[in-house]
């Protein structure tokens, strides 16, 4: 038992930082779900392409020896480009694969999303190759900041950054949704697409905006995760997507705070699972928690129960 207690503080930190990553991915899922009530299976792939964009930006700057630039500026550039590309990609996907199906049965929408996901994954495989791309982060984060030691606990600078960004995004998003006109229109659309349309909300535009923001968040997340784990490859979307949407559902899909909570719960449960069981079972533990939560609270930890209209 002592053996476990000894590593517990570190594992808690591991869990929280991993949770930050999951939360970041989950927010994009949750936003789209909140408006359209659909699981955007392709979000994982949009996320992956955002990561590739960030990598290309860094790669080009690196090749041009432009890394003498301020590290913050470089990261900002990567994030902006990744957000733009994945945002536009998200809008495109919505236009091509989802909008024609808005009144179709749910299962068709889901399969269309799956089709997009298969396409994008293999598109990248074809044109970018199967090789993993590495982010040269050493040039961005000074040696002294890379690892921070606090008592028995070690964590890296990038991990702290991910959590900080995560909270900033949350704050920004909730302000936007609560107090801007656009946010109000988004909430109205989330409540009832048709009624919102009657009230003069340009629903198509709102949905487009939501897809743009949700996908752009995915892109930003991907760059941050890329900087943190130093890699991106064409298959990154599947694992990230699975975890991201597990987190979103766990927290109560459609609820942004829920997505964050879900992310942290998932990250912590994985870290603790590794502590007490063979590491291979960490996903088993995570999924068992998901199932248990959904059986006891089918609407997730923070989601609202919406009774069916009769």
């Amino acid at each position: 038992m002592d053996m476990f207690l000894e590593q517990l503080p570190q594992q808690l930190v591991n869990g929280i930082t991993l949770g930050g990553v999951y939360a970041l991915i989950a927010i994009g899922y949750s936003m789209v779900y909140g408006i359209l009530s659909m699981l955007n299976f392709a979000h994982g792939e949009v996320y992956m392409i955002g990561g590739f964009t960030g990598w290309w930006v860094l790669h080009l700057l690196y090749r041009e020896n432009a890394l003498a630039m301020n590290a913050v500026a470089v990261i900002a550039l990567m994030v902006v480009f990744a957000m733009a590309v994945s945002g536009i990609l998200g809008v495109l996907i919505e236009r091509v694969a989802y909008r024609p199906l808005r009144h179709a049965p749910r299962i068709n929408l889901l399969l269309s999303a799956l089709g997009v996901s298969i396409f994008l994954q293999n598109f990248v495989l074809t044109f970018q190759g199967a090789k993993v791309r590495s982010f040269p982060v050493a040039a961005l984060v000074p040696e002294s900041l890379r690892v921070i030691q606090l008592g028995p606990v070690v964590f890296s600078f990038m991990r702290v950054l991910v959590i900080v960004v995560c909270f900033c995004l949350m704050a920004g998003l909730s302000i936007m949704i609560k107090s801007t006109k656009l946010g109000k229109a988004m909430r109205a659309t989330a409540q009832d697409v048709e009624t919102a349309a009657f009230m003069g909300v340009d629903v198509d535009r709102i949905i487009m905006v939501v897809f743009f923001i949700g996908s752009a968040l995915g892109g930003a997340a991907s760059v941050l995760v890329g900087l943190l784990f130093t890699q991106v490859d064409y298959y990154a979307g599947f694992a990230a997507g699975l975890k991201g949407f597990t987190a979103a559902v766990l927290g109560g899909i459609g609820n942004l705070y829920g997505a964050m909570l879900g992310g942290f719960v998932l990250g912590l449960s994985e870290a603790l699972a590794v502590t007490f069981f063979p590491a291979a079972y960490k996903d088993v533990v995570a999924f068992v928690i998901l199932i248990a939560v959904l059986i006891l609270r089918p609407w997730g930890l923070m989601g609202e129960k919406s009774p069916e209209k009769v």
Partner: protein
Amino acid sequence: MKRAILLAVSISALLVAGGPAAAADAAKGIHVGNAGSFTGDAASPCMEIFHSAQLAVDEWNATGGIQGVQIEHIMGDDALDPAQGLNVAQRFVADERMYGVIGPPVSHIAQATLKTYGRAGLACITTAASKPELTESGFNHFFRVNARNDAHGYNCALFIQDTLQAKRVAVLNEKVAYCDNMATQTIKGLKALGVTDIFQDTIVAGAKDFYPVLTKVKNFNPDVLFFIATAAPDQAIGVRQARELGIKAIFLGSEGARDKKDFIEAAEGAAEGAYLYHFSPDIYAIDAAGGYVSAYEAKHGPLSGFGPAAYEAMNILLSAIDAAAADGDITRAEVVQHLHDIQGYSGILGIPITFDAKGDLEGGATYFFQVKGSEFVFQTVLTGK
């Protein structure tokens, strides 16, 4: 009722007409197959195998092919699914102009397809499948240019116990056949050599965050961390995060880590001093490989560890077919026989290649390297003694 009969007739007609036309004339074409998982999870190493084999085929074709016949290199994608692997196998077997196959590189698919290729006597040269049982089934068609897990496992155990002088060993392996069997064999070897303080756990490839499991390793405080993963990027993350967490143990990586770009460069200094093993000497240090390496890297970017063996295997296969074709006609049995007859083939791998009766690489040596600066520096070679 009429429609039913009509349908029945047309389906039967379709079935009869649907199959590929059977060609009997061997001189009209020479096919070699490449069975692998070119999409899905393992696409990266498999595509490198395919491109490398293609280079070899292109070179043969540029010099007139075999007996003046151009060689056709056919991809058989199984998407990492054994059932599809069998479809590929049957397809290759049914192709009468198919005289040999490179692959399958994934152990469990090689296992699933073993009997199909074996019954047809179609030569297979795998470049990565290292599960020992594959050559123990009584068939004679299956060859490998890579070493078996059991040989490697013992050699690694010996290296850890003898050269590195370790008392406590942590073994982390990815949960795929190659890595899992490697871990099992190494632990078996370590126990036989009297090292009993062993911690074992698994990682999930592509998960990218190994902090939780590495925290466990740190807690165990080993002398050596043996990190077995297929691909170099996972190894790079492994060594980087281990160092970040302050694990002081010697890092011993597996074959996949012999990749300058994706391991040494990607780890950005964390890999300094790490060891790794490989079944062949450093490809960059071999003069004969220069042409291949530059041709590959010009076309497909930096090499990881999987390409050279595939290039070699394809060359071996084609020379066996060439030998079989010397008398004008080729049979699969001849190709298999010529492969068995090969003695000390000297190609680009830097080791003379001879297959034993089972099809395994004779010798089965394990080469150990250490990362110094941006180079892999040869340390020692062990042959299981």
